[in-house]
C-alpha cells in the first residue's frame, strides 16, 4: 500500500509550494466566512428572544433557543394590516412559481428544438432577437407589461404574474435549450424524420427524453429567478396576491413599536428556504447540466 494516493496532476513537493497552498486555503477560507456571515447572523438572530438581541452582540450564539419568532413570522406576524404571517404569501409564490417555471421551460424547450433542428428562414434573426430579450432590464418592460396585463384583465393577479415571468423567462429558457440542442446530432432528428415522426412526435419521443440536463439547469434557473423576483411582484400584484418577497418587505416595514429583528430574520429565512432547498438538492445536477455538452449517442 502506498502511503498517500492522490489522483490528478503530479505536483512538486517542496516548502515553497506548500506555503503557497496554505496561503491559498487561507484566502479561500476567508471568502467562505465572508459569504457565510450574513446567513449565520440571520439564523442566530432568528433563534434568539428579543431580550437577548438587545443585550448581546450580532454574532453571539442564542442562549435559550426559541422558535416562537419563526412561528410568528409564519402565521401571525402582520403584513400591512393582515396579520396571518407569511403563509398565504408563500402559497401565492408557489402558485406563481410552479406554472411559470413549467410553462417557460416547456416553451423554451420547444423554441430551442425548433431553432436548432427545424432550421427555417429567419431562424437566426429570431434567435438573435430572443437573445436580445435576455439582456432587457426588468425596468424596461414594466410599463408595456402593465398595459398588456390591464388589457387582458390580469392586472394585480397571480396568473398575471405567471404570464409576466413566463414571457420574460422565455429568452433565457430558449437560450439554454438552444445551446443544448445544438450539440445533439442532427442525424438523430433526420433519422426520426425518415422513420416517419413529425415535429411534436420527434420532440416528445426523441428529443425531450434526451434533455434532462438542460431541463434541470433551466428549471433551477427559472425557479430561483422567479421565486426571488421582487420588482415584477411589487409592480404587478396588489396586497393579497403579493408573492412572498414583497410580503417580506411589507412585514419588515410594517412592524410598529419595537423592531422584532428575530421575526424579521425568520421571515427572511422562510422566504429564502425554497431556493436553498433547490440548490442543496439539485445543485450538483445544475453543475452537471451546465457542463453537459455533447450527448453521447
Amino acid at each position: 500500500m502506498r502511503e498517500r494516493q492522490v489522483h490528478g496532476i503530479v505536483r512538486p513537493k517542496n516548502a515553497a509550494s506548500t506555503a503557497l497552498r496554505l496561503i491559498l486555503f487561507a484566502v479561500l477560507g476567508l471568502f467562505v466566512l465572508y459569504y457565510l456571515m450574513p446567513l449565520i447572523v440571520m439564523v442566530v438572530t432568528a433563534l434568539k428572544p428579543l431580550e437577548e438581541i438587545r443585550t448581546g452582540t450580532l454574532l453571539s450564539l442564542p442562549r435559550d433557543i426559541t422558535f416562537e419568532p419563526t412561528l410568528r413570522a409564519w402565521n401571525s406576524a402582520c403584513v400591512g394590516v393582515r396579520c396571518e404571517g407569511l403563509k398565504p404569501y408563500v402559497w401565492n409564490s408557489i402558485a406563481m412559481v410552479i406554472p411559470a417555471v413549467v410553462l417557460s421551460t416547456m416553451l423554451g424547450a420547444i423554441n430551442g428544438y425548433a431553432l436548432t433542428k427545424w432550421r427555417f428562414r429567419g431562424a437566426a434573426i429570431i434567435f438573435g432577437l430572443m437573445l436580445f430579450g435576455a439582456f432587457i432590464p426588468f425596468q424596461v418592460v414594466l410599463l408595456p407589461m402593465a398595459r398588456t396585463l390591464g388589457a387582458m384583465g390580469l392586472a394585480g393577479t397571480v396568473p398575471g404574474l405567471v404570464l409576466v415571468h413566463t414571457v420574460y423567462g422565455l429568452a433565457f429558457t430558449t437560450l439554454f435549450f438552444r445551446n443544448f440542442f445544438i450539440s445533439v446530432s442532427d442525424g438523430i432528428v433526420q433519422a426520426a424524420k425518415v422513420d416517419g415522426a413529425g415535429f411534436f412526435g420527434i420532440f416528445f419521443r426523441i428529443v425531450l427524453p434526451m434533455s434532462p440536463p438542460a431541463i434541470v439547469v433551466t428549471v433551477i434557473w427559472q425557479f430561483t429567478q422567479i421565486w426571488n423576483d421582487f420588482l415584477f411582484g411589487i409592480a404587478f400584484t396588489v396586497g393579497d396576491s403579493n408573492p412572498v418577497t414583497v410580503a417580506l418587505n411589507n412585514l419588515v416595514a410594517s412592524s410598529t413599536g419595537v423592531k422584532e429583528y428575530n421575526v424579521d430574520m425568520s421571515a427572511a429565512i422562510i422566504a429564502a428556504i425554497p431556493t436553498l432547498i433547490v440548490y442543496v438538492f439539485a445543485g450538483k445536477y445544475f453543475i452537471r447540466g451546465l457542463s453537459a455538452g455533447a450527448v453521447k449517442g
Partner: protein
Amino acid sequence: MSDIRLRKVRKRFGANEVIKGIDLDIEEGEFVVLVGPSGCGKSTLLNLVSGLETLSTGDIFIGKRKVNDVAPKDRDIAMVFQSYALYPTKSVEDNITFGMVTRHVPKEAREKALAEVSELLHIETLLTRKPGQLSGGQRQRVAMGRALVRNPDVFLFDEPLSNLDAKLRVEMRTEIKKLHQRLGKTVIYVTHDQIEAMSLASRIAVMDNGTIRQFAPPEAIYEEPVDLFVASFIGSPSMNLFKVRVVEKSGLRLEVTDEEGTIQFPVPVALAGSARAYLDRELYLGLRPETIGREGTQRPGRATFGFERMIDVVEPTGPDTLLVFTLGGIEAIARVHPEDKAPVDTRYRFEVNMDGAKLFDPETGKRLHPTVLKI
C-alpha cells in the same frame, strides 16, 4: 420497383451553390457509390434523394414517381447515417422498431420483423441495451437494422463505416456487400474512402465541388479516368503525375528533366495519335504505382521502359513495398514486391509498364483517348 433518376438537380444554401446541376440515372438494384473529397456535396445530394433537403431546382424520380414534394417518410427509403444517429434514450429494440411504431404497424408484424433483422445482423442479445452500452461495430449493426426493418425499395448510406476502426470497417464492408447481393435493393452509398467505393460499387459517381466528374463501373473509373481529378482521387497511393514534354526523338517521346538527368518515356502506342497533337508542348503522364516495378519484373508482352533513380524512402505495407523516389521534381511512388526492395539512397532500376500509362491535357485536365492505329 425503384430506379432513381436525377434531372438537372441543383441545391443552393443561400448564395452558396452546393449541387451544381447533376443528372444521374441509377438502375434498379444497383449499388451506386458517391465518392469525393470532404465538402463536395455528397451528403447534400443524398439528402436531396432522401427528402431531408429540398431541391432548389430540378427533379428527382424514384421509380415512376416524381418525389420533389414527397416527405422523407413517404419516399420508401431507409437511411443509415454516418454517426449512426441512434436514439440514445431508446433501447436497441425500440430504436429498430420506432419507425414501425410511428407507422402503426401491428405488434405481431413488428416483432416478426425485429426477430428477422436481429438474427440477420446477429444482434439478438443486444436488444435490451441502450446505444451508449454498445461498441462502435454493434451500433453500426443496430443502425443497419433500423434501416433493414423498413424493407424499403432504396437504401441510402451516408459514410456508414467511417467511424469504425480499420478491421471492423473491412468486415462491415463485406457484410454490406453480402446484404446487397441478398436483398437486391437499390443502394446509394456515400463515402470519401475510395477503397470502399471501389470494392462495393456496381458504379461509382466521382463528385467534385457539386458536380459529377465521372459515373462508371469501378474498373473503368480506375483504368479510364476521364480527367486528372478522377485519376488522382481514385487509387491509393494515388497515381504519379509527371509533367512531361512531347518531343520527336526516333519516335514520339515524353521527356522529363531533373538534376539526375533526362528521361524519355516512349509514348504508348495507342496514345501516339492523340499525343502527336501536343508535339513540343507539355502533357501530364500518369503512372499508377503498381505499373512501376523492378527491372525485369513486368509481365512479358508489355511495352516496358526502364529508368534509374535514387530511392528516397522505403515503406513496407506487408504485401507490397512502396519505394519513394523523385522524378521531375515530383515525389513518385513505385509499388514493388517486398523481395524487390532496396536500401534507401541507392540507385534503383525501375521498369514501367507503359501500356498502363495515361496522358492528360494540362489545361483541361482531360485524359487523352486512345486512337485506332492507322497504318
